[in-house]
């Protein structure tokens, strides 16, 4: 048939690329978690010792839990900050809404490393925040309390993610049929009731997309904690990176990645009914 030949021609290159450079590496990572070491001859030996090590080492598990908590806090804060903005843009900004939205998105497209660097400057010992607190007399001498902590990681990541969360919430709010709100008003709902019983429930898919958009990369984050987190702010992604770069324990690193991947897939399965792919991509 013509149709099937067209489909095969169109779909073969992307399918092959994803199979070879995405699915295959994931399978290899799973296989690698059973190898004894990264290099021959340990490489050829298959063992469960890394599984036993991971299960026995509560420090790894605690760090994973802590990172999940940080990711949860960052997502919640980003959503709380972004929701009112998305609401304002969708319902009260009129013809200006796309321009105002673009203005908010632009900072998000400037270099990620440099935005982190900016926060390093702000939170540093002689940084903006410390100078400010000094000049208003809230503290008596510059203190490096702000940088190299979990708080620094959270603040920086919230800053990085807010615009990306505003996008899917905004699109979800835009999709709401305005006549539903009129109907609710006609039936005697107050503005608050209209929000709680119509707008908010209908915007939840956008909120869920925003949540995933932040939670997933934050749980796997290693660059931000490496730059502003210090020892206090180390996250699970940092110990994975460490296994591959410094400790050279690739099998253990593979296992750690696998555990995180499994958590993500579980989360995605939970959200699969509410979240639209296009919301995640912001299109």
């Amino acid at each position, binding site marked *: 048939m013509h149709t099937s030949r067209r489909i095969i021609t169109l779909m073969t290159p992307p399918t092959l690329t994803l199979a070879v450079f995405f699915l295959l590496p994931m399978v290899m990572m799973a296989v690698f978690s059973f190898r004894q070491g990264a290099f021959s001859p340990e490489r050829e030996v298959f063992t469960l010792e890394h599984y036993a090590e991971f299960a026995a080492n509560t420090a790894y598990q605690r760090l994973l839990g802590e990172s999940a908590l940080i990711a949860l806090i960052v997502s919640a804060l980003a959503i709380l900050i972004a929701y009112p903005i998305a609401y*304002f843009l969708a319902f009260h900004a009129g013809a200006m809404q796309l321009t105002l939205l673009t203005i908010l998105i632009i900072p998000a*497209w400037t270099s990620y490393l440099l935005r982190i660097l900016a926060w390093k400057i702000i939170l540093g010992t*002689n940084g903006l925040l410390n100078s400010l607190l000094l000049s208003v007399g809230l503290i008596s001498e510059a203190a490096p309390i702000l940088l190299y902590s979990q708080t620094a990681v959270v603040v920086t990541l919230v800053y990085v993610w807010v615009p990306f969360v505003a996008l899917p919430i905004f699109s979800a709010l835009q999709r709401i049929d305005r006549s539903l709100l009129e109907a609710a008003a006609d039936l005697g709902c107050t503005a608050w009731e209209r929000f709680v019983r119509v707008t908010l429930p209908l915007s939840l898919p956008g909120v869920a997309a925003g949540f995933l958009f932040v939670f997933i990369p934050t749980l796997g984050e290693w660059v931000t904690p490496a730059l502003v987190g210090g020892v206090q702010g180390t996250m699970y992604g940092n110990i*994975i990176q460490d296994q591959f770069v410094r400790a050279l324990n690739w099998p253990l690193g593979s296992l750690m990645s696998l555990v995180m*991947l499994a958590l993500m897939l579980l989360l995605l399965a939970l959200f699969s009914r509410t979240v639209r*792919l296009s919301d*995640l991509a912001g299109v």
Partner: protein
Amino acid sequence: MRRDWLAPGFLYYLGLAAFLYLPILLLVLFSFNDSTRLVFPLKTFTFKWYTELLEARELREALLNSVLLGLISSAVATALGTLAALGIARFNFPGRRLFLAISAMPMVIPYVVLGVALLLLFAQWGIPLSLWTVGVGHVIINVPYTMLIVASRLAGFNQNLEEAAMDLGETYWGTLRRVTLPIAFPAIVSAFLSSFTTSFDEFAVSFFLVGTESTLPIYLYSQLRFPSRLPVIVALAAILMAFSVALVLASEWLRRVGQARGVSG
């Protein structure tokens, strides 16, 4: 709709915009400050960090690498994404849902996982790390986005145009070339630009896949360890920001032009 510029909503908007822009403006401010330490109070105004920037050979190499990497990997990602978009937007076939689910996965797995998995693949095959291996990573990162951007454009315009072309005797591939792709062109360019900005800025995956050559983010990260180099980096930051803003505006504008044309066509 009546707008009240002093309404709480708008004030909140201004506050958030300030929160988002101030850190960036801070970097710009320090790029003109005559001191190697990025602290207040400011010293005198200077251009010297920008002139030092021009003299850094490694930086120029890294910049060139990043541009080439961005161009090539985005071209490949956009081509693959467009093919996939044409397939999923116009045909229903067994495995379509599976393909959608798998092709979206790179968007929803942490970059560290993608980076180390590809590192294992290249190690297994004995492929030395280089800009090409980084490019593979960037293609995988960008394919889902390019696919969804083009697919949403394809879903947004009337299929009757394509059917009319075929009724008038044009082949399927002729219709693609002469009707579908021209209409989708703004979205394809927008997908390319969005890939390019991602690739140009990507660090978390590149870090695991880069060989001896640097990309710009890899170079930046290495320089962050040397405090005396910070002002130069900040000057670079200011330039890069201006550049990415221009790119984003171009990409947004193209998408709007495309959508506007889709409505009238």
